């Protein structure tokens, strides 16, 4: 039986680790390669790196980070942030990532998903979506809207429809990130996650709001997620991967032993 995956995301700016809180403030907390290796050794199942480097002339620093990680970390990892073309994606994959992670660029130009899927296979294409809870309206029936630019720009696209479209275009996995829950540590957005998991047939990774192992349990059961993304609860040493996994096993969730 397939295990539920515990994935951590590392935000990287200018080659250094940062963790976003509500997308407003970021604070450096270390070296991404050291951190990735530590999590790998502690039994993490997968990693995501988001490049939040602002200036384009520093983008190549990320490729160095990717290849340094690939030389020492032998679990799958994806890389996102600033990938706008198949060529951008190709560079990241050649540097050693298994998967590329697209978000805003795919909302602005959905063909990016189909182009990347055709070039590298659906298994290599992860579509991340930032979602805001809104009042249901025509075209936004679910009450969940796609936003970009770190939550600042509302796109008028229903999140459930976008998830289905992403799957049709060739995404192999979805990361569903709730802007409302992100950074709160009050739990994942269970309704949103479940609605999307029920609407698509590709794996769904829940993101935003994980603060305790119980939150992971909730989103992997009630939220129907295949995997949960954890950030600050690990980054700040509040829980270890082993503690999270032990809790989940005790509650009957199958995970890879840490």
């Amino acid at each position, binding site marked *: 039986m397939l295990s539920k*995956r515990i994935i951590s995301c590392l935000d990287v700016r200018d080659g250094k680790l940062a963790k976003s809180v509500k997308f407003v403030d970021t604070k450096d907390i270390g070296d991404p390669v050291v951190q990735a290796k530590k999590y790998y050794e502690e039994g993490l199942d997968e990693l995501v790196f988001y490049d939040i480097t602002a200036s384009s002339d520093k983008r190549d620093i990320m490729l160095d980070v990717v290849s340094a990680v690939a*030389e*020492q970390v*032998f679990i*799958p990892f994806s890389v996102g942030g600033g990938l706008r073309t198949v060529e951008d994606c190709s560079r990241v994959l050649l540097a050693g990532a298994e998967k590329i992670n697209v978000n805003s660029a795919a909302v602005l130009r959905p063909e990016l998903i189909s182009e990347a899927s055709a070039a590298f*296979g659906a298994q290599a294409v992860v579509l991340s979506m930032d979602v805001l809870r809104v009042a249901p309206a025509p075209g936004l029936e679910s009450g969940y809207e796609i936003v970009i630019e770190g939550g600042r720009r509302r796109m008028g696209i229903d999140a459930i429809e976008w998830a289905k479209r992403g799957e049709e275009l060739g995404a192999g996995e979805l990361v569903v990130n709730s802007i409302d829950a992100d950074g709160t540590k009050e739990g994942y957005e269970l309704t949103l996650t479940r609605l999307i998991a029920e609407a698509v047939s590709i794996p769904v990774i829940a993101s935003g709001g994980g603060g305790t192992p119980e939150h992971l349990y909730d989103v992997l059961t009630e939220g129907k997620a295949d995997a949960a993304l954890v950030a600050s609860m690990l980054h700040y040493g509040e829980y270890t991967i082993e503690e999270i996994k032990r809790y989940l096993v005790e509650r009957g969730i199958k995970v890879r032993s840490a």
Partner: protein
Amino acid sequence: MITIIDYKAGNLTSVQRALNYLGIKNQISKDPDVVRKAERLIFPGVGAAGSAMKTLRERGLDAALKEAFERGTPILGICLGSQIILSMSEEDGNTPGLGMISGRATKFKFRDESLKIPHMGWNEVRISQPHPVLAHLNPGDEFYFVHSYYPQPESDVNIFATSEYGFEFPVAVGVDNLFAVQFHTEKSGPVGLQTLVNFAAW
């Protein structure tokens, strides 16, 4: 020296990085002569069977690989490499394979919609027949998988390990000097690295 066969199949550099990390000498090659004379071969793969077979033929690697197999060269197939060593694959409208083991790469089909395809993630590997490449593993060890087809040999004699996803399916197959695994040894953490160490010593 392990030669990793280059046929535009994706995960070559991941396999190479894992071997480098383990201090196992290796090279990547697309030259049929190098493959024919190799001491040991890794036949990796990510992608579709049809285009993989096409590239193998264009580069003359299909014949070279079969020759190496007949000469007794230890060969490790990974992922797609565990499928196209069979007689055929259901992928791309029944693609003929290399035929080193009788059988077919078979697509997952489920009535239960909660079972997603591809089978992606970590799953337990159960050893059904001991094999040197699967040495030093423990019951319950999990490996990383990403695939929509699985290798189904005609005879159980060729099945060395299975996993469960809706039903029990083969994940390690072999005959003589050929061994092949559906999971990604190079992305399966310490247990995956162990199988690469095992292969280097097989």
